[in-house]
């Protein structure tokens, strides 16, 4: 590991001033991804700015019924929070489906959104990778890609975003607030991640040195009837091969409101807006759910070894919406 400086900060303005002064500095939250990547040499910061003690560690219920989540709230505290569990149960389930109890105690909301892909070529500094070394190539496309992207990828990169939390936040229209040395800004989470194109090394729309301070969830009554389902290669403590955050409101057998987002299929949490459009006002039955899944998945461009994900995601949409429809009318 490369040697580095370390500074702990206690206010947001001090934190962003340090990053502004040193382009080789990085924010350290829980460290569950960054420290690991520093050990393997993927990340080589000259300085770490420890933001864990910033006063951003609370989940606030807003007057409109939404939530304002501080960036240093741990995954554990987010999943245990009564208002998260009551108003956005799929978000609590998504967080609980990720990592292990130990890692959830360390990891933070801001860090979760900015974690890096778990593509094996990205993690191995002896291999080419366009995300790590722009222009070096993507060995995954002709190599090991059984758990890579089927949506929104390019000839330059087929890596997926590993977050579970981000899938549920995307389904519920989360907005990311950040601070920079030049002032604050905000961006909807569904626009935070840049299209892959020929610049897979450019991952987010955040300005250089920006610090995520909050994630805001607008009120969403439909989210009270929501679920997160994650499919993995073992029962627990593994990244998804496909996941879904779904919320459904049904009245008189007709879909009144629906939210759908997919995980482990793209370089970002994938909001399934084409599927949502098909379902608006449609009968809440398996046939309509399958038609909605197909509408979303016509854009899928699977590689030789990950075509199973198209079937998997179709089945997940039908299964979870069917279950939510039953629960909505119970």
């Amino acid at each position: 590991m490369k040697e580095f400086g370390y500074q702990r900060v206690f206010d947001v303005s001090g934190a962003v001033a340090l990053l502004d002064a040193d382009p080789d500095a990085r924010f350290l939250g829980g460290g569950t991804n960054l420290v690991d990547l520093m050990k393997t040499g993927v990340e080589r910061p000259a300085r770490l700015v420890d933001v864990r003690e910033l006063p951003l560690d609370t989940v606030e219920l807003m007057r409109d019924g939404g939530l304002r989540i501080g960036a240093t709230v741990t995954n554990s505290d987010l999943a245990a929070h009564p208002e998260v569990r009551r108003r956005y149960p799929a978000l609590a389930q998504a967080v609980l489906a990720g990592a292990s109890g130990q890692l959830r105690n360390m990891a933070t909301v801001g860090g979760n959104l900015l974690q890096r892909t778990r593509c094996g070529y990205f993690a191995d500094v002896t291999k080419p990778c366009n995300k790590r070394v722009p222009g070096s190539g993507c060995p995954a496309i002709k190599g090991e890609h059984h758990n890579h992207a089927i949506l929104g990828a390019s000839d330059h990169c087929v890596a997926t975003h590993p977050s579970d939390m981000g899938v549920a936040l995307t389904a519920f229209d989360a907005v990311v607030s950040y601070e920079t040395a030049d002032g604050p800004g905000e961006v909807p989470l569904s626009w935070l991640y840049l299209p892959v194109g020929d610049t897979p090394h450019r991952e987010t729309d955040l300005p250089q040195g920006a610090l995520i301070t909050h994630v805001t969830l607008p009120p969403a009554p439909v989210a009270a009837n929501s679920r997160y389902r994650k499919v993995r290669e073992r029962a627990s403590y593994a990244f998804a091969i496909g996941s879904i955050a779904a919320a459904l409101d049904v009245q008189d057998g007709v879909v009144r409101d629906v939210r759908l987002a997919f995980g482990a299929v793209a370089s970002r949490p994938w909001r399934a807006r084409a599927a949502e459009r098909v379902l608006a006002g449609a009968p809440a039955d398996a046939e309509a759910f399958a038609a909605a899944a197909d509408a979303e998945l016509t854009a899928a461009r699977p590689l030789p070894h990950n075509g199973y994900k198209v079937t998997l995601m179709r089945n997940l949409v039908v299964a979870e919406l069917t279950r939510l429809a039953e629960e909505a009318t119970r």
Partner: protein
Amino acid sequence: MAPATPSTHSAISLNINGEKRTLSVDHRTTLLDALRERLDMTGTKKGCDQGQCGACTVLLDGRRAVSCLQLAVAAEGREITTIEGMAAGDQLHPVQQAFLDLDGYQCGYCTPGQICSAIAVIEEHAAGWPSAVTDDVRPEAAPPPLSADEIRERMSGNLCRCGAYVSIVEAVARGAAETQAMTSADLPQTEEAAA
């Protein structure tokens, strides 16, 4: 102007099992390496060193964490509890005793991490935290009993290469029952701790 080259070492003070230990560390030092290599506290084990096996589990401010991904310098000011701090004098923690009585191990290498994790699992469950196998996570739902399924899910961050999982699940269940009995009976734990 280029930023000044930052110092890459710090003198730090760590609070470990209620004792203050001061040392100078290279910032690259993980809490795990500080414990084992610098402070001769070898109860905490190094397995994968990349946050995937749980052998290095300790408690930070009462919550379980993997010490291999925790920088020592960033642990300054936090209350660190290792396996060496779990017993009250000669009186083993009920979870330690349960692992012994039920053979919750084979080679024993992952055991300190299993026990630290289990002690925290029992507290998390008692605090009403749901898990990924809890069917209804809403706060109005009845909290799930600490079933074998719940234990397996909550302990999934601790791998056992010998595959002693059957006994580990039993030991965690008994440890939870004993801990609950002790708490409700309000046994004189403080006397033991003072002894």
